[in-house]
């Protein structure tokens, strides 16, 4: 299983061929502080790399989840509607945001591997 990371502090896990799960990194949730509301996209939405696909509201401010890859949203984590804190408590597990079917698998090459992300987020 491959996990890649974006410069916007998101993780992208490739499950099979062209299906990915996307969430925010532990670094991101720590920067954001306590999360109070998450607005998710609709299943079936077509998104392009760089689109704002979710709104993440913390006690402090609103931020966007920026699509790290292009494709179709095939599932959203409905639990985040009532329990946005899942994304703080377990950002890489139960706090995932969306699952997408990739339209261009090569976009994964734009993302960082874990070692590169570690270095990036320590800067």
């Amino acid at each position: 299983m491959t996990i890649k990371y974006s410069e916007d502090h998101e993780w992208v896990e490739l499950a099979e061929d062209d299906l990915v799960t996307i969430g925010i990194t532990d670094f991101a949730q720590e920067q954001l502080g306590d999360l109070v509301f998450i607005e998710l996209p609709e299943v079936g939405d077509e998104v392009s790399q760089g689109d704002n696909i979710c709104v993440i509201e913390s006690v402090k401010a609103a931020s966007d989840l920026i699509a790290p890859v292009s494709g179709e949203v095939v599932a959203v984590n409905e639990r985040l509607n009532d329990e946005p804190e899942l994304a703080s408590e377990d950002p890489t597990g139960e706090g995932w945001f969306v699952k997408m079917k990739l339209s261009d698998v090569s976009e994964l090459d734009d993302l960082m591997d874990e070692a590169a992300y570690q270095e990036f987020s320590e800067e």
Partner: protein
Amino acid sequence: MGLAMIETINEFTTAFHQMHVDAGAKMVPFAGYDMPVSYPLGVKKEHIHTREKAGLFDVSHMGQVKLIGKNAKKALESLVPVDIIDLTLMKQRYALFTNENGGVLDDLMVTNIGNDSLMLVVNAGCKQADFAHLQNSIGSDCVVKVMEDYALLALQGPQAGGVLAALAPESCEMTFMTAKVLIINGIECLVTRSGYSGEDGFEISVHNNQAQQLAKCLLMHEAVEWIGLGARDSLRLEAGLSLYGHELDTEHSPVESSLVWALSKARRSDGARAGGYPGADVIMDHIENGVAQKIVGLQPEGRAPVRDGVMIVDEQDNNVGKVTSGGFGPTTGKPIVIARISTELSDGTKKLFAIVRDKKIAVEVVKLPFVKQNYYRG
């Protein structure tokens, strides 16, 4: 995700700066100071800790200034629409500096500390302008002494009374909006029973040289935790308390900010010392004839926070107001909003909406505060 890291050089630090850093605080620039916005506990838990136990806030960035002299009370009355002459010994009162148009320059706390002296606490962001305003306007009537060497701590929450009573038993005699000089663990402090959280609590003025020692002593109590500016804001928002630059500004009179209660009877048109402060004609006109807009509480439907600056519209999409403070209430578990809206809509009989990311979120006019204020009135 737009996690902007802004590097700012902050000129000022408070006497507790090293303690905040050692406690793992996230430091942010605020009114020229490097201040703790939150500690490892996080805003939400810090907020709840203050509602349930006792929170310790460093508010030393606020301005402390003493007015000294036989004419100090009378002089201050020339700048505020509030009764200062009849403020008795060791009593505290909320006041506002007004401008010629009836707008608000700042809000402040005034305490009669005896010996012909008043102690004022003003907002950090306004303090330099306030000091100049005092010096220029009444500097020839009394001594305006900025207490630069003094720190200010706020101890807030249902256990604040117990914590302080264990260290200074005389604090038990204090009720809301009164003051006392207390010796806490050998340190002389000027203490008022007041605060900005909606809870019972104290604000403690202490010399910088003994400030850390006092904070350490208070933090020894298991109920006490450092609380950052993030939770200070959510606590005051739930308590329905105005924040300068949000509910209060130079463009709106105290009446337009729903602070009529703060305008003393003695200074109104039929009072013993009517008028005699900047903008008195405008403010008295606003009291007598009403105003087009006022500050209200709004409860949005759903979970999405409605933040400062968001437009409020009616069913026909007419712009009828604007959010002055909005956020999420950790105690209420819901988004909460304070807004300035048309007076005629403040009775809540018409449907209102907040426009968030091009969507209409229904909001209901509610009575402030969002959580019950728990002041100790004896």
